[in-house]
């Protein structure tokens, strides 16, 4: 606007300048009104001056809660002469270890709940691949997840479908599995199951772990 006014100045057209001046006056007046209104609101809220009014603001919040946040298989070995053991969680049931002697008692799916007050999208990522998790023979190892609704219709709009109700290799980059995770009670929870295939010749031994990052963002 300033530039425009400068150009107008050079054009030396008094009529144009007058129109511009009027426009700016109007603009200024409107801005001033907004300014005063905002200032009034601010003063009232911070001083509690306004009596006779009940003011509140309900903020929208996205809050993801992981009600079961750990899949813990504990110690175990691959049963000889098998070349791998398979460890699989199954929702809220105890996990199952085949060809190995791990205990599935504390190995249940992660449970993710949207406890905010808006729908949100849900993105997942791990930090390891099967190779970095276990090492050993590539053909004898796997690190996979499977995302499903724990409560019917919790995920209203699925995103990345590769792990929807099926096993897919864990991503180390965030994958948006659900574009619209509901927040309403009884339809706001999802399961993330995991399958670990441990090779008999794992080069990574002892305590092994990975961290799954679960992010909720504004739904599309």
């Amino acid at each position, binding site marked *: *606007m*300033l530039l425009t*006014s400068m150009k107008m100045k050079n054009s030396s057209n008094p009529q144009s*300048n*007058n129109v511009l*001046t009027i426009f*700016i006056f109007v*603009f*200024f007046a409107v*801005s*001033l009104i*907004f*300014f005063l209104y*905002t*200032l009034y*609101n*601010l003063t009232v*809220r911070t001083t509690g001056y306004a009596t006779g009014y009940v003011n509140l603001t309900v*903020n*929208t919040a*996205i809050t*993801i809660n*992981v009600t079961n*946040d*750990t*899949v*813990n*298989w*504990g*110690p*175990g*070995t691959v049963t*000889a*002469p098998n*070349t791998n053991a398979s*460890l699989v969680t199954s929702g809220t049931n105890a996990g199952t270890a085949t060809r190995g002697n791990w205990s599935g008692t504390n190995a249940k799916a992660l449970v*993710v709940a949207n406890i*905010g007050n808006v729908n*949100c999208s849900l993105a997942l990522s*791990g930090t390891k691949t099967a190779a970095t998790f*276990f090492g050993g023979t590539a053909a004898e190892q796997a690190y996979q997840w499977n995302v499903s609704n724990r409560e019917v219709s919790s995920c209203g709009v699925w995103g990345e479908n590769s792990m929807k109700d099926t096993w897919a290799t864990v991503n180390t980059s965030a994958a948006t599995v659900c574009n619209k995770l509901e927040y309403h009670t009884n339809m706001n929870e999802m399961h*993330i199951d995991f399958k*670990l295939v*441990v090779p*008999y*010749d*794992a080069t990574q*031994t*002892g*305590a*092994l*772990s*990975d*961290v*799954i990052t*679960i*992010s*909720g*963002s*504004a739904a599309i």
Partner: protein
Amino acid sequence: MKSENLVFILSILLITLSFIIFLLIFFENPEVIHKFTGYVSTNYGYINLSVLTFVSINLSVDSVSWGVGTINAGENNATLYTVGNNSAVVQRGNWSAINVSAFVVENIGNLNCSISVQSGKNTHDFFNSLTSSNEQYKFNVSNKEVGSCIGSSLNTWVDVNKTSGGTKFCNNFGFKKNNNEIYIDVLLTVPYDAGNIGQQSDVIVITGDAV
């Protein structure tokens, strides 16, 4: 000129005022920022397990049984020895070599280990030759699968050792599939004047230690 100056001043005021309003709105409504930035809630899940290391030795063939036999007439001894999983050999005697093959040892753990072999008896304990001659009792360790065992006494007949710990044949016995099996062949030379007659046997102990 007056009008132009006024326009300029008003423009500056307008910009300043707009900026102040902008700041006030953001100060009052921080969630607006969240809306603009895609307010994100982040949480974490954890996957834990422990893979234990262990040494485990399996004898997939755990018996060398020659059955009944005698030394051929006129001979001072008979020699019997296994040859891996091939047919065994009987010299100067009439023992049957059918179904007689070497011990097969497999590393089914998930660590490399050493292999030592200890017998329960030495040669004389086994046969008790009256002249302490013409008697032998030996082991010969070899790879069933290439590269399974690394040691300095492979493919050689070595007198049995009944002292504690026995004889170390493998310094490094692998656990990986297709590289984790060895033979322990057994050679017996039966003297004509054996003091121990009838059924004879021995128990051997094979020990693997993690390396």
